[in-house]
């Protein structure tokens, strides 16, 4: 567990978090591994986890009836995947599929939600970090909507 605690505390996403919180968060963490092609989660399933990707690449996909699975984003080493665990009704909005062998730290969202309810300071610290990620994704989505590589016509 100490090893996992080190990894968690070193990760940029959680860096600077009070050691006591690192310990709490690490209590909800586990090492996971996905083979290429394996799904981390599927749309509409309950969202009880989020992932800190340590190695590999994951495609976030939406299924369109006429086109099949369309990749709309990829996350890789250093990225954080998933915030549906934080927002009711806690269901995934997309599919996430490992494109290559992926190692990650999975954080149990249910466990974290409970801890955040008991300690709002922890909740606020985590929320600040997720807000930053959500902002980055929103910005990237907006830029993409501008049709970055065409003339927008």
């Amino acid at each position, binding site marked *: 567990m100490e090893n996992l605690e080190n990894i968690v505390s070193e990760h940029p996403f959680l860096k600077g978090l009070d050691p006591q919180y690192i310990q709490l968060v690490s209590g909800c963490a586990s090492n996971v591994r996905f083979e290429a092609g394996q799904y981390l989660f599927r749309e509409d399933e309950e969202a009880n986890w989020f992932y800190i990707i340590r190695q590999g690449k994951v*495609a976030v996909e939406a299924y369109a009836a006429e086109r*099949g699975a369309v990749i709309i*984003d990829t996350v*890789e080493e250093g990225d954080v995947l998933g915030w549906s665990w934080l927002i009711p009704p806690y269901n995934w909005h997309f599919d996430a599929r490992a*494109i290559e062998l992926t190692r990650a730290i999975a954080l149990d969202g249910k466990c974290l939600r409970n801890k955040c309810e008991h300690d709002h300071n922890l909740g606020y610290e985590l929320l600040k970090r997720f807000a930053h990620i959500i902002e980055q994704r929103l910005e*990237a989505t907006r830029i993409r909507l501008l049709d*970055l*590589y065409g*003339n927008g016509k």
Partner: protein
Amino acid sequence: MATESNSMNTIVPNPMLPQPFAVQRVRRETHDTFTLELSPSEKHGFKFSPGQFNMLYVFGIGEVPISISGDPTRQKTLVHTTRAVGTVTKAMYKLKRGDVLGVRGPYGTQWPIGNALGNDVIIVAGGIGLAPLRPAIYQLLSQREKFGKIVILYGTRTPDDILFRKELEQWRARFDLEVHITVDRAMSGWRGSVGVVTTLIPKAPFDPLNTVAMVCGPEIMMRYTVTELQKRGVPTNDIYISMERNMKCAIGLCGHCQWGTEFICKDGPVFPFSEIKSLFVRREL
């Protein structure tokens, strides 16, 4: 750092007079993009600097500015990569081997390869914007030992729109070059990155304070790229972009390409961002 001035002479005595060049080879790059290899005269070849453009005249249809996309050390073929978007470029798309095209140039400023000596270089291209940067990449690679890290970031709409795919694969396989490609969307067979090109910048391995950035793509792409480079800490002076506006004379006479106080045909198309940043964000010019 200032833009290096255009030291190349035009190969034609009258800069307004197109010279006939024969199409030697046509290569279809993507569904709407193609590369023409033209043969210059045996005697003179065709000298240019990376970043410069020519005016290409499809006889009877019209003339358009197109950057040179070939290797500056190979003067025996003149290479242009074009996206068919309208009247002239669609007519150009139909040209075959042996057809003749009018060429005048080369015109404009060049990518700041000299300023990049001893530094890291980051090249950020969007869509067809990789074509004007390709001569710069050739030049950097021909003197690889003179630069620090070289990073190429390329973004385009879909995997089918990737330009110079084979060459990108070769570059990516090199151990002295970092090449990252991302597309806006892809089907599930794609194993690369999905997302806009700006998302590659925060993680790209270069030293922001000792880097020269060369950026080419649609204006909107360049705007967000510059912001992201600045967020990483690249000084505005070290960011260069290539601007596109319609041209007529291409030699600073007609005013067609005027952009504030600058003429894109002769003061550009490659500008240090610091020189034009006030124009870049202005809505009406």
